[in-house]
């Protein structure tokens, strides 16, 4: 099929060096933060993240203008001997999303993670800023690496950056939650590694583009696909491998939760897309796609129902993440169904990725909003949220906008994503996924509605806030939520960025 173009030797494209800079900048940040130490860690992060945003914007612009994948041959060596960095539309969108969310988180967390005066270096702020940079570098490596082993290293980085974010607060429960996360992450890495080793043993290369042309339906490839997928699902926290995620959120600071839910789990999800659609599209059977989406459907139902039963706002949002991760996996049978009908699979792929971006922005905003509510009230019991609407109007609006994005109201990104997925489901006659999406949407709207209604109740006595939250922190949360809510307008863009660099085997000759 696409073996021929893949066999042509790749060369570094225009703008390829942007990929190197985007990959290395966060690591330089980590090294600088570690060496300079103390309050410099925050300065380094506040400097590097906006710079990284500019770089990822430049990558998007370059990809849109040239309408092709950006490539950089590291050391000048072409695969299979060497390793390339690649940024297609999927990578470019994820790089940009990551940079935007990290900037919002950094602005939000600026006040929370300040080194106390008179101290040269304090553990919590120093670690937070260093880990934020560390997480960013790992994600960029996941989005850019074109080689399965480099991606393994990137996954390891992602785990080691994510786990300590869970136990920034010094308590026994957070340590236990972090250990549990570590065990899932390590199990995932081992399984992924085993699969990569099998693929190398069978085909003699680890390069994604080369493998795509070589992988055949045979035991080694099937075993590799199964092992790597299960490993990545454990890291993505797809039901029933989600057990680490809610406790991890329970004791993490709001900003850390935002990063974990919005970004960390998206890194491993991104690799599932790469694996299923780019490395081994030829051997994935429709039944496998149905199975993966069945876990997704179970996640949507279980996650939403458990979310409805939560007493704490933060745990409600955490279980909502369990459910929203489920939606991400509906794209696989739909993409397979479209391809089987000789139709382009872009509605499913664009819908799936848009769902990831929409959830990332909405969920980051909601976790940060919940953090502000906790700071103001001194608790986050859903039953006692009365008065929040008056005290934190912008935060509550942000929560409602983020919630609408999760439910999928127009013009939210979630609306466009679900619309694309729904239309793909109807085109391919897979009506059962339509049912799942509709029921999931209803459950989601139920808990968003409950929280907003509770918070809108006014209290006459007027509760005294434990802490007055500065308006600019509310504004950051609202800005991110608004972004999520307006993401659906991406439909009006002249180009579908996600599809840049994607093979379009069936596009020719279709109306």
């Amino acid at each position: 099929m696409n073996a021929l173009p893949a066999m042509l030797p790749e060369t570094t494209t225009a703008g390829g060096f942007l990929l190197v800079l985007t990959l290395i900048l966060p690591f330089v940040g980590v090294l600088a933060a570690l060496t300079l130490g103390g309050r410099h860690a925050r300065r380094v992060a506040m400097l590097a993240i906006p710079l990284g945003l500019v770089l990822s914007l430049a990558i998007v612009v370059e990809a849109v203008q040239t309408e092709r994948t950006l490539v950089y041959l590291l050391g000048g060596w072409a695969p299979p001997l060497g390793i390339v960095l690649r940024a297609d539309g999927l990578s470019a969108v994820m790089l940009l999303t990551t940079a935007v969310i990290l900037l919002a988180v950094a602005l939000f967390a600026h006040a929370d993670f300040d080194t106390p005066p008179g101290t040269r270096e304090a553990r919590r702020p120093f670690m937070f800023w260093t880990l934020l940079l560390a997480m960013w570098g790992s994600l960029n490596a996941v989005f850019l690496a074109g080689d399965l082993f480099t991606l393994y290293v990137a996954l390891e980085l992602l785990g080691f950056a994510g786990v300590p974010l869970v136990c920034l607060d010094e308590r026994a429960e957070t340590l236990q939650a972090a250990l549990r996360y570590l065990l899932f992450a390590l199990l995932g890495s081992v399984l992924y590694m085993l699969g990569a080793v099998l693929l190398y043993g069978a085909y003699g290369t680890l390069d994604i583009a080369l493998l795509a042309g070589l992988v055949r339906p045979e035991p080694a490839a099937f075993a590799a696909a199964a092992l790597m997928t299960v490993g990545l699902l454990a890291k993505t926290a797809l039901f029933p491998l989600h057990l680490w995620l809610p406790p991890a959120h329970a004791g993490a600071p709001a900003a850390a939760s935002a990063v974990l839910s919005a970004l960390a789990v998206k890194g491993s999800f991104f690799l599932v897309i790469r694996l299923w659609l780019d490395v081994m599209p030829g051997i994935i059977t429709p039944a496998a796609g149905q199975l993966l989406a069945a876990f997704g459907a179970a996640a949507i139902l279980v996650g939403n129902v458990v979310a409805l039963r939560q007493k704490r706002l933060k745990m409600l949002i955490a279980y909502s993440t369990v459910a929203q991760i489920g939606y991400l996996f509906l794209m696989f049978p739909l993409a397979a169904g479209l391809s089987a009908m000789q139709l382009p699979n872009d509605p499913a792929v664009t819908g799936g990725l848009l769902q990831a971006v929409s959830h990332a922005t909405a969920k980051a905003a909601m976790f940060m909003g919940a953090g502000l509510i906790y700071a103001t009230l001194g608790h986050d019991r859903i039953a006692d949220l009365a008065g929040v609407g008056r005290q934190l109007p912008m935060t509550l609006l942000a929560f409602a906008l983020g919630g609408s994005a999760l439910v999928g109201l127009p013009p939210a990104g979630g609306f466009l994503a679900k619309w694309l997925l729904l239309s793909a489901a109807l085109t391919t006659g897979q009506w059962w996924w339509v049912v799942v999406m509709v029921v999931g949407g209803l459950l989601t709207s139920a808990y968003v509605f409950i929280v907003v209604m509770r918070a809108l109740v006014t209290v006459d006595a007027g509760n005294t806030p434990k802490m007055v939250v500065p308006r600019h922190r509310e504004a950051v949360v609202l800005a991110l939520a608004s972004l999520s809510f307006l993401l659906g307008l991406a439909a009006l863009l002249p180009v579908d960025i996600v599809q840049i660099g994607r093979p379009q085997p069936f596009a020719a000759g279709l109306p």
Partner: protein
Amino acid sequence: MNLALLFDGMLVVLILAVAVWTVTVRDSFAAGIGYAVYGLLLALAWVRLAAVDAALTEAAIGGGLTSVLMIRATVRLRAGEAAARAATPGPLPRLLAALLGGSVAAGLALVVLALPDPAPTLAPQVAEHIATTGLGNAVTAVLLSFRAIDTLLEAVVLIYALIAVWTLTPDRFWGGRPGPKYETDPNGMLAYLARLLPPIGIVVAVYVLWVGADLPGGKFQAGTLLAAMWLLAIMAGLTEAPPISRRWLRGVLVAGTVVFLAIGFAGVPLAGAFLAYPEGFAKPLIVAIEAASMLSIAFTLALLVLGPPERRDQA
């Protein structure tokens, strides 16, 4: 030939037996010892597979440092061992876990046996291009030239791991010294060894680093050896672990990666690509990266074994 086969067969049986014993033994200290033996046996297996680089690393990391880490951990967890054992899952979940693990292993074995023979390999391509690196050891050429980005990122993984360990520091000890203050008999056996071995260890480490360019060896093995020597001196009470807030220490930790990045970026104008080496200068530059990385690896590994700070920095 048959003797070799017999030896290999015995090695395989022994590795499996030690692995099963390590997993099933109830006492965690014993499991730690089993793990160390397992690492050394694996190193032997790598030697039999003619992968001497992997064997050296396995012996140093798997058999050496990780075992120290395990044994130290089990000694520390002694107090909670009875409680932990009481919370161990019952026979049914354990049986299910064993079945799951066993069937995955069996499936893997079947798939591995079905892999193409001879295996597809990049070795001819490496041989074709190794001349550009000026190196004789193909493994070093792959690690520092063809797949240099992996090695660079691996160095960052080590730093991340140390950051993760340091996150566990109690706030009041932040910036302090890792591990307890070791006090041993200054005339005892340990102190004697800690005086005797490090000079030899340092010379061997430098040798392993240097020959790594052409023969099995390199920064990782050498760095592990250095770390072991330093740990020996610390545990014998001859010297103390430095407070983690020291800027020189932070500098040493990142030095390897900084040198790697600097040489990598110098490749952009001088050799046409990030992580490319200018013609004729590949070997000296690679040796420079290896030397700096050896120091960083040695310090990082030793600090990983020592763990988070446990006491204030008393000057």
